[in-house]
């Protein structure tokens, strides 16, 4: 379907690889720990927080922030490796 485009293709594969990794973590911490596994995780305490509840109301948000900065940083590296960065 898509023509092979040399380095362009490798760049896009690297981008999609990073994307997949980040989306898996994104899904696991919110839908996984925060919703599906919440009843199980709640038996573990994090300070005064049941762990599942903590992921749903605090933890997932902190991890989202970290994920975006990690993504932005890694994309910057991938851009330079494949020589498609700006400036």
């Amino acid at each position, binding site marked *: 379907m898509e023509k092979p*485009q040399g380095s362009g293709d490798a760049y896009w594969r690297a981008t999609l690889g990073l994307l997949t990794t980040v989306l898996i973590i994104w899904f696991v911490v919110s839908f996984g720990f925060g919703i599906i596994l919440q009843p199980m995780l709640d038996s573990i305490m994090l300070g005064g*927080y049941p762990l599942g509840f903590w992921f749903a109301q605090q933890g997932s948000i902190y991890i989202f*922030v970290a994920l975006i900065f990690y993504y932005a940083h890694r994309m910057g590296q991938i851009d330079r490796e494949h020589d498609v960065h700006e400036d």
Partner: protein
Amino acid sequence: MDLKTLTYIVVGATFALYLGIAFWARAGSTGEFYVAGGGIHPIANGMATGADWMSAASFISMAGLIAYNGYGASLFLMGWTGGYVLLAMLLAPYLRKFGKFTVPEFIGDRFYSNTARIVAVICLILASITYVIGQMKGVGVAFSRFLEVDYDTGLYIGMALVFFYATLGGMKGITYTQIAQYVVLIFAYTIPAIFISMNLTGNPLPQLGLGSTMADGSGMTLLAKLNLVVTELGFKEYTTQTIAGRLDMFVYTLSLMIGTAGLPHVIVRFFTVPKVSDARSSAGWALVFIAILYTTAPAVGAMARLNLHATIQTGEIGSPEGNLSYEERPQWFKNWEKTGLLQFEDKNGDGRIQYYNDKNPEMAAKAEGFGWKGNEMVKVDRDIIVLANPEIAKLPHWVIALVAAGGLAAALSTAAGLLLAISSAISHDLLKGVFMKGISEKSELRAGRISMAGAIVVAGYLGLNPPGFAAGTVAIAFGLAGASIFPALMLGIFYKRMNKEGAIAGMIAGISVTMLYVFQHKGILFIKGTEFLGDLGPNWFLGIQPNAFGAIGAIVNFAVAIMVAKMTVEPPQHIQDLVESIRTPRGAGGATH
């Protein structure tokens, strides 16, 4: 100084600040009007996005939703923040590389079709108008409660203010005012929370306070104490209750996430930064600024719920002296009774207030034994939680005045962003793009200002005469955006084979399925009596509430778009080259039209 004068001074000072910024940041070109000239620093844009994003619903209503739905309300917290991960990775950098002014413009160019562009404009206007009504109401309500002017006057003042800075400055004016509004609203939100967390747990950070031990010497954690207090009164356990089950929660969270990523007024904020790499990091900054409020909100909700029950249930449940006497109710109670948002009815005539869950049969039976005749707090409006919080915690007057200014900042900043998205869809997509292609830049700028003024008048009218459905529809706006715009953008970037036939069919299918599902449960065009299936759990498809249906609409959109695209011809070569070019950052210039 009395509270009213102080509130006038604080709110007046913030308004003067917004007007001063607007005058300083006048827009001289369409580039400045639509995308603030494209030179906004990523951190500054993140802050502006925070204010653009956090509406009256986030500021006023969310903590109340959390207070009453406990764990179940986590779907708002995760849904309204998780969308930024999608936005940062799937949309923002690529749309920034594309480098145009509006979201429908991308859809029109990528799918080489004015029809696609017009369908996108319609989806955008449907989602944005539903959303803006809520903001206008928020402005009116904040004015009428804190400044004691009536609702209509409050709305006119708000409209005049937005009119001034949005038509004069366009995106440029809106950006700098939103930065100021973010600062106002975040102080207004966090300061009372810090005081309250300090009082209850001795920990000044609300995010940690919520997970701490109570400072009352009981040795219990705050959440365990709250669970105990609410279950003893027959309410559901705070840390485990859900709104409509776990599947609904899953789908609702997903709807809010993709809706967040698909709302045009948020997406265009990322057109204002200089580079593609800035669009990525700016989404991170936006979420940092949003997370400050969103991680504080669960503490505000839980602590307010605890304080409210402690105020009313002063002693042992069932003992004659255990409930607050109505005569001795605190001043804030009286203030909010006047607004009608808090109502007490002495059902058993004992002069004391009983607040419990009389819908719970076990509790109702127990209460009868105490001589209680039903829950006497017949109305506790959820919006009170944030607005009355400083009064309940006996904080100084300047904090209460600040909360008023913060609520107004949240509503005004979001309204301005939405109005800009609507007016640029009209002046740039419909006029310049389709109907009056030869229009000069100067005339387009004038058309932009006129459609902004028109949009403000329409929004104001709907705020003054709110359609019956207005209150509950902010969530539906997310469903509409998530089911139409998000899949079209994503397929446009990630699926080179996607053609105009597929994209148009997908958008129409996605938004239709979502609207039909909402209509069948809430009435056609929300007219009562025309719903052919009741709005009750058993009638919901797999138990999913209408507000949460955007995710299903989005799945339908993806499926229809891909099927239709496979059956029709692939897009022309220059479009496939365009997709290649937006996928790589190099060569991103300033936004042009």
